[in-house]
């Protein structure tokens, strides 16, 4: 858990969880209206982080129109070009260090963004990065709330942990796997906390997390969100195997293209949530020996490019076109998925090693 957050008693914005003062009328971060009496003290980070999407506030997000730079009116539309201002939950990006970034987007067809991400990184390029992506299951209630709460809870567990075992590579790898298991537990707890006990359709989501630490890359997943390693000069590696109906078909020898276009292609066999039988992530460890890209993404991206090799090519080309900047590259990959149809929520997180 984030020590800095638990040590403060300042209230937080009920909309985005950002710190605010008791005298503020609007949140500095997201522009939401603050009502006295509703400000929660920023005690456990988990609780505050789970609030964001409960209620869409009528007030427009702070800042100019993303389309033309005009002023956004009180009715939520640009006063110059009429573009609808995005809700903060519909599209957000994070860049904890210049070499690590992620973009999470509603896509085109869905009315809510049930994808979530939470990422952290140390400033030194290639040193330590934590990438978590959760994809809320559409058929369940409040999956957008649950997925964000789960992703942030997992990130906080991973950020806090520094266990190295006895220092050998295998014991360091084992320690990171243990942290991933704990992160999945925390994510699962956060999802459960956001599920009403009598909900007929409890919130659930996928889970994928990558820990990059001192040249070791450990990935763990539950469901069909994925992690990849795209070394610049070697073959691309899929770090995860989906817990899905399609993956089970592939295991029996059916081609990926055929399995992933079948009627149950998106049915997942494992997930986080109240009715999940097991949420222990399946992990893979890899030693990083050359420069490349770590990608953690949701099916909103890989639906349009599932194989590791072409996805690596797409990523390299996109990165080259954007000067190797992780945020611009992730954003361009989200745009690309939207251009392919944007049938699902899209999350792309990248670390440049």
């Amino acid at each position, binding site marked *: 858990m984030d020590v800095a957050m638990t040590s403060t008693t300042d209230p937080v914005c009920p909309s985005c969880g950002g710190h605010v003062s008791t005298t503020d009328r609007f949140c500095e971060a997201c522009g939401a209206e603050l009502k006295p009496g509703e400000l929660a003290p920023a005690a456990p980070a988990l609780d505050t982080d789970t609030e964001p999407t409960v209620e869409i506030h009528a007030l427009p997000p702070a800042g100019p129109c993303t389309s*033309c730079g005009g002023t956004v009116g009180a*009715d939520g*539309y640009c006063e110059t*070009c*009429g*573009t*609808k201002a995005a809700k903060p939950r519909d599209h957000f990006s994070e860049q904890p260090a210049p070499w690590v970034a992620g973009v999470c987007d509603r896509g*085109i067809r869905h009315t809510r963004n049930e994808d979530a991400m939470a990422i952290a990184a140390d400033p030194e390029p290639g040193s330590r990065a934590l990438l978590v992506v959760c994809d809320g299951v559409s058929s369940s209630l409040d999956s957008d709330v649950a997925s964000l709460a789960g992703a942030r809870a997992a990130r906080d567990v991973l950020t806090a942990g520094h266990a190295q075992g006895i220092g050998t590579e295998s014991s360091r790898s084992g320690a990171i796997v243990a942290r991933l298991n704990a992160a999945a537990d925390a994510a699962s707890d956060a999802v459960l906390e956001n599920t009403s006990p009598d909900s007929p359709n409890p919130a659930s989501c996928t889970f994928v997390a990558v820990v990059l630490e001192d040249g070791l890359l450990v990935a763990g997943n539950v469901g069909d969100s994925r992690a990849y390693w795209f070394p610049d000069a070697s073959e691309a590696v899929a770090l995860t195997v989906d817990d899905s109906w399609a993956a089970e078909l592939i295991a029996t020898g059916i081609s990926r293209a055929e399995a992933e276009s079948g009627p149950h292609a998106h049915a997942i066999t494992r997930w986080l949530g109240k009715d999940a039988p097991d949420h222990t992530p399946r992990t893979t460890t890899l030693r990083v020996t050359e420069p490349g890209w770590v990608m953690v993404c949701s099916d909103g991206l890989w639906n349009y490019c599932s194989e590791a090799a072409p996805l690596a090519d797409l990523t390299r080309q996109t990165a080259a076109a954007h000067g190797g900047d992780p945020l611009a590259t992730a954003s361009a990959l989200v745009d690309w998925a939207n251009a392919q149809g944007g049938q699902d929520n899209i999350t792309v997180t990248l670390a440049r090693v």
Partner: protein
Amino acid sequence: MADFTAAVYQNEFLPDGGTDVHAIVTVDCTGAGAAGQTGTGDAGEIIIVDTSGSMGREGVQAAAFAAQTALDQILDGVWFAVISGNDRAQLAFPPSAEPVMVKMDQYTRQAAKDAVSRFYADGGTAMGTWLRLAARVFATVPSLSQKHAILLTDGENQHETPEALTQAIQAATGQFQCDARGVGVAWQVDEVRRIAQALLGTVDIIPAPNQLAAEFSKLIQNAMSRGVAQADLRVWAPQGAEVLFVRQVAPTVEDLTSRRTSINPLTGSYPTGSWGDESRDYHVSIRLAAKGIGQEQLAARVQLTIGDNVVAQGLVKALWSNDEALTTRISPEVAHYTGQTELAEAIQDGLAAKAAGDTATATTKLGRAVQLAAQTGNEEATTRLRKVVDIDDQDTGTVRLKRTVEKADEMALDTASTKTTRVKK
């Protein structure tokens, strides 16, 4: 204080590449109060009566009686005057060589009624001069925020050129509102409608002089119940968009498009005159640059404003979709008023063709009108059309022009052509 609300009816879904957005905006006003009594300025009322020779002794007597009835309906405290018009305009009350108005009270009411009783029929008809005098009379009372006139005529505007009337109408536009009535069948609907439309009023036929008093009484009561002196419709459209048209479509069809004054490059203002407790519908059409599937944008902000205060706002939206079930849906409100607008045009075009002796065009147009009236459930229009054409099949619009038609029935069809029915909910 008056309370305004706005509601928008539209199908916001556009197909890929779609650019044109249509919406009906219903504006409701409640708690309007009475004219001149809401603390927002005084109300003024001028009664303009035709006293040309063609009115005759009986006609002028009926008009005088109607004017007296109207005077009884003007609230105490309202500024008023009476103008008698023939080929020039005279101030019949207050008795003054210079333009002037007085406040209504029991003494001025009686004095005005006495003055009106001395009307006599003489001279020709030059309605432009009546309008110009009315504007000058209103201008003598700077505290007036609400200016309304009723104008009665019985004949063609023979003693002034059409250009002179046009100029007088232009000069009066924005100065005051005017409801215009024609008595008998010797007046020109087009002429009087031009006056009423420009001056944000209504036009109608009063077939017989003995119906004048009831109509005048109703008109003044209406005017007195309009506590909101002046409101404007404001339409914002995004940069690069084109406002195709702005129309009032209920209670009557009035094209407001050309009445735009610019508030800023993206916002236009259209005068709507005074408001009582009532509901009006507006049809707004905007052409946008097409956006990608899944994108949403605002097509228009439609606001009612009093001065610079926005008292109601409706948002017209556009959302591009590749779901045909959504994009092919037609808003019943938009369809209804599109039909009603075409109905008004078909009636006016049909009657104009009939007057010009073009039987074929008249039959086609009036047939289309019959069809539209049936489709949009405008039974009043159907009833009026029935007096001008024999209907063989209203579904296909097959009609025959009646061999003999009462002139008054034809004029009633014409004056009422812009009246619309509301959408059946």
